[in-house]
């Protein structure tokens, strides 16, 4: 039976992590994410897990990779400044294909920025923060309810695809307290790490193949293998042989792309007959949904496309949208990071404008409505 309680987004992330089986957390507290660490410091020992405050975010990221290699579902939480520090080891987790979850509750940056104020400025950092081309998954919830479910999903996707998953929150969702329905644990889908079936001598920890993900053996389970940040062959040993390196690239670039249907999620609100659409995500999407209700009351055919998976980006959905509506208004608390994607995918078929705010205050339904009305006038 499902149960209800009141919690803010950060608490919902922590509860989702526990429900997904997270048993190791290493982090350094930072506003506006600190409640996640605070809650898990008390809750993890209750369930036999380990909470560790590290010396910094570099160490936090390294420690969750290590714990994951040892078989524990692992996570860390931070904000922009800490996320910057994590990029080196995040790349290592991508390269060595080690599952883990990184929560980033965004605040206004760069540098120390506006520490207590909401922003959505780390969208592109979540995609390209670590160096080199690489696959990555980033999810962004709009409510405490969704924060719980996406927290569970982040761990599931991490295990399924052997990849770090970034859970990108904004302080609107992280700090808003609201009712959450917690599902019965029996109704929750929790993905456990598949165990290799090959005998130890034949185990390929990095078996290549289009969209293929090899099971990750836990150190100490009888399999001995090489883990490296260097480009490697299927056994995990470094190589510079261009033929193997290209097969490795094929493996890395298709391991998510071959599964977009399983990974990419978005929500559409009243898009069926829409002539104008808002694209918004995270806390901003709530103002956008409200604006849709208000616009419809005024007779404006407005709809909302809300990316839930930010990376890989819901490209097909946005392409379809650009073929349907005349104008797309992208509302986000940055200077146009998702608008760039929407413009690229629209390829001139729909006019794309933006509502952007970077002063730490939330975008209001009025601001979005004003931009929509402006777009409607210019038909």
């Amino acid at each position: 039976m499902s149960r209800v309680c009141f919690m803010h987004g950060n608490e919902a992330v922590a509860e989702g992590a526990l429900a997904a089986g997270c048993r190791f957390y290493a982090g350094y507290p930072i506003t506006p994410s600190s409640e996640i660490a605070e809650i898990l410091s008390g809750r993890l020992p209750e369930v036999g897990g380990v909470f560790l405050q590290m010396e910094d975010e570099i160490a936090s990221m390294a420690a969750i990779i290590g714990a994951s290699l040892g078989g524990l579902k692992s996570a860390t939480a931070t904000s922009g400044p800490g996320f910057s520090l994590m990029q080196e080891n995040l790349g290592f987790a991508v390269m060595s294909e080690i599952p883990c979850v990184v929560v980033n509750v965004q605040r206004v940056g760069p540098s120390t920025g506006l520490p207590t104020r909401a922003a959505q400025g780390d969208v592109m950092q979540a995609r390209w923060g670590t160096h080199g081309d690489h696959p990555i998954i980033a999810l962004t919830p709009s409510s405490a309810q969704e924060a719980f479910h996406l927290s569970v999903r982040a761990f599931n996707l991490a295990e399924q695809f052997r990849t770090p998953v970034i859970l990108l929150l904004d302080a609107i969702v992280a700090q808003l307290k609201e009712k959450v329905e917690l599902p019965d644990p029996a109704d929750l889908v929790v993905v456990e790490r598949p165990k290799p079936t090959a005998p130890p001598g034949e185990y390929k920890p990095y078996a290549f193949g289009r969209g293929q993900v090899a099971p990750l053996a836990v150190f100490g389970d009888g399999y001995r293998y090489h883990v490296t940040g260097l480009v490697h062959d299927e056994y995990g040993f470094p190589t510079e042989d261009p033929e193997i390196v290209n097969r490795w690239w094929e493996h890395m670039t298709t391991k998510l792309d071959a599964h977009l249907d399983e990974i990419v999620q978005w929500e559409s609100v009243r898009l069926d007959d829409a002539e104008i659409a808002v694209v918004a995500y995270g806390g901003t999407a709530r103002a956008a949904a409200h604006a849709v209700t208000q616009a419809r009351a005024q007779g404006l055919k407005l709809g909302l496309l809300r990316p839930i998976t930010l990376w890989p980006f819901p490209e097909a959905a946005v392409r379809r949208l650009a073929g349907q509506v005349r104008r797309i208004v992208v509302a986000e608390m940055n200077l146009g990071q998702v608008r760039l994607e929407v413009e690229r995918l629209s390829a001139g078929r729909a006019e794309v404008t933006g509502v952007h705010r970077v002063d730490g205050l939330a975008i209001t339904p009025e601001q979005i409505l004003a931009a929509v009305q402006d777009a409607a006038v210019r038909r």
Partner: protein
Amino acid sequence: MTYDRRFATTWQLLMDATCTVMGLGRDRPPPVILSSLPDLPYKPRARAPLSFVQGPPGRLIALAIGLRAALPDTPLVLIMNADAVSLGTNHLIHAARRNIGLTLLLLRAEVTQTDDRPALDRLGWDRPEAQQALEGAARPLEWVSALNAAFVGRGSLHDPDGLAEVIHQAVEARGFAVVGVTAETTLERGVLSRAEWPEYFDAYREWARGLRSPDGGAVRGRPAPPPPARPVPRCEVRIAGLGGHGIKLAGAVLSEAAGLHAGLWATQRGEYGAATRGGPSLVDVVMSSEPITYAGADHADVLVALSQKAAERYAAGRDPRGRLIVDAAEVTDRPPGALAVPITALAREHAGAPIAAGIVSVGCVAALTGVVSLEALRASVAEHVPGRMIARNIRALEAGYAAARQALEADEHA
């Protein structure tokens, strides 16, 4: 081992010495080795792969801490030169202070076939000798020995069996251990210092055993209340005043009465001034039978202003049909349509302190909206205030309800 030690490379000797841990400790799982250099046993395939992590220099200490949390009995051996120690010193300090069970093999310069200087000089750049002379030698063993390591030892590659024995002792020390590895021919192997205190994760597990919750701590929340009999349209409430008015508590009582007792969806968003500073404080509560989208009460259906400033700042923004309640004593310059209720006076009278003003306000909101019943609010109050305070806060709630009804009737007759 299958190779002749006389022709062994430094790396083979190191792996050889480290792997003796496997044979010596039959009660232990095989070790995991961590190094910024990769292991390359497959060309030629001299032996089966080890459990090995090649990663960013220095950072591997932090990675090994996570591994240790997951694998309490697996020996974790880190191979580090002076540069790796430099990069990872922050991690090293904290691993040492917690006595985390890692074994660090610190390669002295003669092992890495350099002089005692950091990377630049190893590149063979023709730097002026005077500039080079400015830099001190890199002596990682000396740096690390200054920490409170549980075990400090040393050994030489010229005495592989002796080195293996020291590594074995370091692993058995079950704590933060360092072994200096040199290539000196005259070095006496040995243990330089040893201390006995609990390994961090052993101690953590012992401590956490007492915290294990019988149900795994998994069950949160309460059974969902039945949904409301009729749909409840979106209702926005804003209570604004000063720190010390109990506004945060008011928001929690109202939103949770709606969400957990009345079967509605509800949000609570606020900016709370510190009680002692008397700064501006505000809470927005939105309630509806549908999930809440925007959580702001910018166009409040009910606005309660407990200070003159709050009335001035927010009155104009409320919904055109929205109600405005002001504190009769604090708000003397009243916007049109305001209902005056002696909120802080009622708080003092029934609860003995102005901090109950928020609860009186919630009573007012209940009277004006009918969205949440007094019964649900009483139950929510009882969940939010300490036992001895419940009765007086419920009196304050009911007083607010009655006073707002009265003010409303007076207004309608006027």
